[in-house]
């Protein structure tokens, strides 16, 4: 991130320790990380390196065992379960590897789901969900069930859902892990477009190098620590998308 910029995400010496029976698992061992508003960061590393744990902490799904995490001007480490839920509701959007759509709800209802918990009036929920579906190119598929959509389309519904309450931070955990190459490219291009249009901060966890190439900064985890944090020129393909 550029020097002097106020970070959106600020992790300081964060530890996460689990106890699985008698075994102590140190998933994170003193991680410090700043991510500025509007950055597109890829977090990479082998499985078990702590990247998903770090993502869960950033997403306010979890609390650090030790250390502090500030999101904007809020110290998340001190928040209650429901206060964190409120932050997830208003400021964070999640995209998962397996989409995690509600299988018996339509695309429109899936997109509207976060708005229910944000107390958005019903008519407004419908209107915004339609708009979002149109914005990600699924106009006309509002009443489709997830099972009637392709993997790439399901992931786009999930992205629309993540944007429902107008978050500033989009977290994607292996967003292309279940997709073919073409769909993966489409999804990553969509990320780039959304970032530009909506000034989103995007953090993507991935183990696929060509996905990480879309980001302008790559943070590598190994054994619960950050071993490298390097800026990079976005790939030509991605740059094309940015120009477009």
């Amino acid at each position, binding site marked *: 991130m550029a020097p002097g910029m106020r970070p959106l995400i600020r992790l300081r010496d964060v530890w996460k320790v689990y106890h699985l029976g008698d075994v102590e698992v140190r998933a994170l061992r003193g991680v410090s990380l700043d991510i500025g508003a509007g950055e597109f960061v890829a977090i990479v590393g082998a499985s078990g390196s702590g990247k998903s744990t770090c993502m*869960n902490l950033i*997403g306010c*799904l*979890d609390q650090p065992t030790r250390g502090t995490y500030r999101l904007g001007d809020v110290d998340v480490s001190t928040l209650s*379960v*429901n206060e964190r*839920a*409120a932050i*997830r*509701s*208003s400021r964070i959007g*999640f995209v*998962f590897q397996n989409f*995690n*759509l*509600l299988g*018996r709800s339509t695309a429109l209802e899936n997109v509207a*789901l*976060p708005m*229910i*918990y*944000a*107390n958005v*009036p*019903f008519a407004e929920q419908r209107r915004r969900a339609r708009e979002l579906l149109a914005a990600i190119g699924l106009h006309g598929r509002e009443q489709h069930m997830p099972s009637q959509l392709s993997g790439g389309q399901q992931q786009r519904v999930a992205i629309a*859902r993540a944007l*429902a*309450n107008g978050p500033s931070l989009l977290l994607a955990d292996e967003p292309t892990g279940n997709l073919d190459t073409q769909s993966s490219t489409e999804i990553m291009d969509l990320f780039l477009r959304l970032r530009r249009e909506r000034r989103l901060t995007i953090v993507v966890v991935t183990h696929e190098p060509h996905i990480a190439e879309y980001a302008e900064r790559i943070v590598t985890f190994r054994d619960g620590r950050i071993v490298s944090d390097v800026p990079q020129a976005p790939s030509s393909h991605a740059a094309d998308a940015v120009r477009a």
Partner: protein
Amino acid sequence: MNLFWMTVITAFRALRRNVLRSALTMLGVIIGVGAVLTMVSIGRGANAAVQQEIQSLGNNLVMIIPGATTANGVHSSSGAAASLTVADATAITKECPAVADVAWAKRQVVQVVYGNQNWATAAHGVPPSYLSVRPWPLSAGRFFDQRDEAGASPVAVLGQTVVDQLFAAGEDPIGAIIRVKNVPFEVIGVLARKGQTAWGQDQDDVVLMPFLTAERRVLGTQILGTVDMVVVSAATADALPKVERQIRRLLRERHRTPPGQDDDFTVRDLNEIAEASKNASAVMMNLLLSVASVSLLVGGIGIMNIMLVSVTERTREIGVRLAVGARTEHILLQFLVEATALSLVGGAAGVVLGIVVTRLIASLAAWPTLLSAPAAAGAFLVAGAIGIFFGFYPARRAARLDPIAALRYE
């Protein structure tokens, strides 16, 4: 409110998703509520029947029967002593101000004959005031009056059962001459049908005749003026204890009973008997109700069981909801509403079942039943409460899920 209705819609959708499972889960509550409602209907019906019975005996009655005798150490049954007389009865009329009316009766089982038919029935010798103390309309003819009484006229008023036994269908008994213990009597009236008592005694199997006629011509009494029963009506229900007290004092005085010795008569308050039978039926009803409640309880456990299954099945859904910003209360509410919807729909179905079964019992078994709206509403609400109570634990379990673990759940 918006959120609440969304939750309700979501809940009904979740239940519709697996109709058979939802229906089977509700079955316990349906049967429970149906059973409770049916039991209450039957209980109330029986109660009302008993009440009506007591009412038909007359209002605010006190019955006096002679006491037991003790002769040479042998204790005979109550009512055996010839200690109660017409004079006692008339004295009660005169000396007890709280008494409204008095009648008395002398009874005996007799053979009555008409043409080639004969029948054994109870002959009651009663004064003309009898029907005013014990309300009993006539279906035909007239009741005997003071002149019949004074003249010991051989006239009789028959109960319906006796009419049915002696006369052919359609034959008019009025004016017919029947023989009671070989004494010819003219039938002057027929009593309206009263039916059986709660304890199965046929009240219509009776022949009423003037007291003097009975005493002198039929029953062959050894001591003139003795009676088997005196019936007294009090002016009001509140006056009953006072009437009882006055009668007891008067009769002890008249019978010269020394202080400390037992009464030689028994005074029974019929309202007390009514109360007792009411209590008995209440005990019965509570017993049946508690059995029915067990079914409701089992239904509640069924709901809890299926909700726990549902929470496990939908762990990922819960994880997604938590991730997109649902608070613990939202999840708690969702599953609580689902459990309550199950139990309320079951409760409504149970109310319908209860009404149907009650109707069936009323028409097939001819039991007196009385459906009550408060009981139906009560059973329905109890079902709802059971849903909330048994739904709470699974709902809390869902609400306390860790979002990360829930999202990873396979």
